[in-house]
């Protein structure tokens, strides 16, 4: 649930403001790598911070292109994804001398909390808090109102004195920062490893979660739980001997993607994005 919901929550705010980022996958990958470097230098908390900052920086780059250069947001996002594949593949070789794979030692991982049900990552709580924060920000603050205005009708927001560019840039950076935290969670918490393609499509499943949520952070928690369940199931089931004898593990690993498709296609039907989402704003 954690990586999908955090990423989707950030992207929800960004899309509400009018900036769509399909480079989430790339941001997850680069910040996952950066978080490992940070954690090995200064512990897990430093790793999370480095992940957050890396994500925010990439979000800033995407935001500047989308907002100030009025660039094509989809193209910029695709560029981020391809760039990430190169940066991390080289980074792993450069940093640890081994190609493609590096395991994160226990000392550098986010320590789990012990709960009555067993160990649980503290990031689960962070996820809920971030969803709550984003919901409150969007629905109950002045900034939230401005954000929604910029996504629906930037010209009207502009006329009312809202600094459309700044609000949208904030949205893009917010999405980047949250995606950065999610990337850090992948590498220094949940999967405890960094590979050349660690997110394995989770950035795109997070985009599907955004669609599922209809831009409501609480529904993103629900969507994250649904998609995350199959994600974890795939990981657990593919190591279970009894199950892989009946169903080949490749088909179990395929499940999160199939479920995402089915949910996006069937349960929710059409979804209406903010009117000006993904469109650059040009002042008359």
């Amino acid at each position: 649930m954690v990586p999908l919901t955090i990423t989707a929550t950030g992207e929800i705010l960004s899309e509400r403001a009018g900036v769509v980022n399909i480079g989430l996958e790339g941001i997850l990958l680069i910040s996952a790598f950066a978080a490992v470097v940070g954690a090995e230098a200064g512990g897990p908390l430093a790793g999370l911070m480095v992940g957050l900052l890396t994500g925010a920086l990439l979000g800033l780059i995407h935001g500047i292109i989308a907002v100030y250069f009025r660039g094509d947001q989809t193209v910029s996002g695709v560029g981020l994804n391809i760039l990430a594949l190169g940066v991390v593949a080289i980074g792993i070789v450069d940093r640890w001398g081994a190609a493609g794979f590096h395991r994160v030692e226990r000392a550098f991982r986010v320590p789990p909390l012990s709960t009555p049900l067993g160990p649980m990552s503290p990031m689960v709580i962070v996820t809920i808090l971030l969803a709550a924060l984003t919901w409150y920000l969007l629905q109950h603050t002045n900034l939230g109102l401005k954000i929604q205005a910029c996504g629906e009708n930037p010209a009207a927001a502009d006329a009312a004195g809202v600094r459309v560019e700044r609000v949208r840039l904030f949205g893009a950076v917010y999405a980047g920062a949250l995606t950065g935290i999610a990337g850090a969670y992948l590498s220094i918490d949940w999967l405890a490893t960094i590979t050349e393609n660690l997110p394995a499509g989770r950035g795109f499943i997070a985009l599907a979660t955004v669609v599922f949520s209809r831009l409501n952070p609480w529904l993103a928690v629900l969507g994250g739980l649904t998609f995350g369940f199959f994600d974890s199931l795939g990981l657990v089931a593919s190591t279970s001997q009894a199950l892989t004898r009946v169903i080949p593990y490749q088909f179990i690993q395929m499940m999160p993607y199939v479920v995402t498709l089915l949910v996006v296609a069937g349960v929710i039907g059409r979804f209406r994005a903010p009117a000006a989402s993904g469109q650059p704003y040009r002042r008359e």
Partner: protein
Amino acid sequence: MDPRPVEPQELDAITRRERRRQLRAALGGLAEILIALVIGLGVGALVMRGAGYNWRLAYEGLLIGSFGDQWAIADTLASATPLILTGLVFGLSARAGYFNIGAQGQMVVGALAAVAVGAHLSAPPVVAVTLAFLASALAGAIWALPPAFLKATRGVHEVISTIMFNWIAHYTALYLVFNVLNDPRSAERTVRVLPGARLGALIPGADMTAAIFVAVGVAVFMYWLLWHSPWGYEMRIAGLNPSALRYAGANPLWSVNLTFILAGLAAGLAGATQIIGRPPTYALYGDLSNVRNLGFDGIAVALIGRSHPLGIILAAIFIGAMGAGARMMQIMAGVPLDMVRIVHGTVIIALAAPEAWTLLGKFLGRARARRAPAPPAPAKTVHR
């Protein structure tokens, strides 16, 4: 309106002005692409310097490995072959207004079909090759259909559906490679296609085969389709103004499906070129390494080639050169192959924002007019 007939000289002048305007626009577009390429190579050099590699030696290796001699050039063209096709997938869809990033999955399925047909069907060479190509084109088109259908009927965004289908194709391929198409003599690849279904090297010792003619042929066909056929006209209108097409009475469902099917055919063929058209393996590797990322590189190709079939051929040769030269780059400067991906990504990001340059020019001009020292800090962000 003015009833006076237009004088021939006047018409000439208008035509000349219009031609000049078009030429200027084309040159501007070309300049944008060149600037993006320079930025991409520049960022690549910076990253290599930062990581402690000799970037000059690396680029020298890249050049020698891609254009150094006739074998290098043949390898470049061999690498460009699948990229022309995957570039057409994205380019054709983009012309029709869709962001189809499903080339990777459709290509993988095409490669599987080529293995299945090529390895099991003994037929005379020409027939075997043709059937293998046809089977893979068909497989690619079939894999492209569900996302098109979901888009047309349920409004599912094609970026999400095509990526999901890419992953489903990936795991399907892994299953088939190890369980159905596996070669008992080798654990790391599928069965090899029969000799009759193999295209031989055109220059002994290099990878280039007649598959490149298939790729170029498809590019020419797509050009004809887009600009000289009614279907292509409809597709381009769909891309420029979907409501106009609806008002004109065309069926949008048909337009989505036609676009995705044609794109899927090209993607499937791209898979086949890696199986029956690329010595010496003539099989699919267990880690899918001989089709790895080719679909995504096609996106870079189409964006650099501005989704025009001719531009895509040139861009595919450029990206193909980086693929072919990367090996020499690794040998000479020790730089990992994935370095070229940083260059691709940066080029695309730079291409995303053509207005950056006009904006930067204005900004610098204003700064100069104010006689204030031009602040260099924001300019750096601009270059990313």
